[in-house]
């Protein structure tokens, strides 16, 4: 049993890290944020590399890899705060892949895989749905825990919404569209894990830049990072980032290898990075960009149970809290 990546996955992560670090320095992020638009040149490059379809099946023109590889890309994207449609398109892709029927999949997924088409993603609740990645989206998927809708965006784009997240475009729509009739819970589960993977990257960014800053910033003649009051806070940030990492990697792995082990409906993988990230942000000395999660947090107990996996033979299956309440 190895709870670690294989060589191919390592290579993907390194390649993604190399490209994004080079193409997306902090100055360019500020430009994209200022312009209020995605980094089109970077997105172009990413789609040429096949990132948009990395976890879609080959018969639908994807790369035929899976959630673990997709999540590695999303983490790296989060870690550079790059502004691209990768996450909302990926979420729409997961919803369609599992929730859509053959016709819906055939119609949209090859185009999503090629990056010609962009997907938006929103949560169904009361009233209008807030849609992440709304600008330029050709299709939007909307989902609640069990219901999914596919909205084809015609000539008229969605009405834009202003949010506090400068790293993505948002819009809103009335809850309408074609019903997604297949395995919507699995689609939304995977979308939640995707969101968590990107947030893990954002949390990592906060930790890395904070550590860099406290080594550099001097007061009382020494770097402020030499004070335990600061050092312990940084250690706690690492604690939370690594906790989130364990949950996200497990979630991505289980989505591929043991989907029945994931809770239905899912929440757990996305709450932790959110918390880790908000704490990381709160600790930063300089203000930074805040990005909202595509998913809404709820506190139902059944949804936060991450179950154990059969391949960890030494571990006993853990109690599913949801069944008890």
């Amino acid at each position, binding site marked *: 049993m190895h709870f670690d990546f294989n060589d191919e996955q390592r290579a993907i992560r390194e390649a993604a890290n190399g490209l994004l670090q080079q193409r997306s320095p902090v100055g360019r992020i500020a430009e994209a944020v200022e312009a209020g638009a995605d980094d089109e040149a970077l997105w172009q490059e990413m789609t040429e590399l096949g990132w948009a379809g990395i976890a879609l099946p080959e018969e639908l023109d994807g790369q035929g890899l899976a959630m673990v590889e997709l999540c590695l890309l999303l983490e790296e994207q989060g870690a550079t705060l790059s502004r691209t449609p990768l996450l909302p398109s990926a979420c729409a892709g997961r919803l369609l892949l599992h929730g859509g029927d053959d016709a819906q999949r055939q119609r949209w997924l090859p185009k999503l895989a090629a990056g010609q088409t962009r997907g938006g993603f929103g949560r169904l609740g009361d009233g209008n749905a807030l849609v992440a990645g709304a600008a330029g989206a050709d299709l939007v998927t909307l989902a609640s825990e069990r219901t999914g809708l596919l909205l084809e965006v015609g000539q008229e784009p969605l009405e834009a919404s202003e949010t506090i997240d400068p790293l993505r475009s948002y819009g809103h729509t009335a809850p309408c569209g074609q019903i997604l009739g297949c395995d919507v819970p699995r689609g939304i589960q995977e979308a939640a894990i995707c969101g968590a993977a990107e947030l893990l990257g954002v949390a990592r960014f906060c930790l890395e830049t904070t550590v860099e800053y406290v080594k550099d910033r001097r007061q009382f003649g020494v770097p402020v990072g030499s004070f335990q009051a600061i050092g312990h806070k940084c250690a706690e940030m690492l604690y939370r980032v690594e906790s989130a990492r364990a949950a996200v990697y497990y979630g991505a792995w289980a989505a591929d290898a043991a989907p029945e082990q994931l809770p239905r409906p899912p929440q757990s993988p996305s709450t932790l990075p959110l918390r880790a990230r908000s704490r990381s942000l709160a600790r930063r000395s300089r203000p930074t960009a805040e990005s909202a999660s595509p998913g809404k947090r709820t506190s139902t107990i059944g949804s*936060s149970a991450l179950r154990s996996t059969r391949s960890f033979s030494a571990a006993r299956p*853990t109690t599913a809290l949801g069944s008890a309440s």
Partner: protein
Amino acid sequence: MAHAGAPLPINVRGILLAGTTLMEWGTEKQQQRFLAPILSGEELWCQGFSEPEAGSDLSALKTRAVRDGDEWVVTGQKVWTSMAQFSRRCMLVARTDRESARHRGLTCFALDMHSPGVTVPPLRQITGEPEFSELFLEEARMPDADVVGPVGGGWKVALTTLANERSGLGFYNQVEMRNNLDRLIAELRDSNQLSDPLIQAELAELHVRTEILRLTAYRVLASVEKYGQPGPEGSLTKWMWSETNQRLTQFATEALGVATLAKSDFWSYELLRSRGNTIEGGTAEILKNIVAERVLGLPKGR
């Protein structure tokens, strides 16, 4: 073993701490002499590190060993020595060079606890159990053959022992904590409290933390197997466990109510015992220093 609810092996310190340290630092002769009785449980081991004035700052220890022919004469006091009263051998760290500063003048020994000059008054803990002892050494003699690792190289030997303590015990502890959480859930079900949303929210929090500790422990294990050492997550498991275990025992007594105060109750013992979790085997504060300085590379400060 932990899954089955079995207690820790009686010689856990021998297997996990002394055994692994001897495998890395012991001579072939020492390995042949000591390892088999460790495995069979014939010779229990304890760990003579902490002193009244050297706890977190282990390198400040004052116990002295002086060479006398082909023997060493050791004098000093150790404290919080777990299971010392039952142990046949002690992995002892002593200062062998008074001139060398701090961690440079230390040496490790495999002390025979039956030697004249070794006395072990037990110390009673808040749980009422004497899990550990003081250890007084008054001119106790040790043969040269019982030096473990190089003379003056005791600090590195001790670090091996401490690293094995944190990672190895952490693995057992996370399973034991899962067992205790399952036990709590069962008891709350029996007392019809599982539908309370406040109880649910806290159980969910504990469940997520326990799962994350389990996954992190597996990541550490995979990393050690593959690369020979744990990644940054290796410094976190003991800290995660101690914090979560204290939270678990406190919540259990709050949720189950006054009955848990009875001395015979499972949770009263666990509540009291868990208070030491953030102290034993490296305090939470020292672990944070280690993470800040060695993992994140922040400048050393005081």
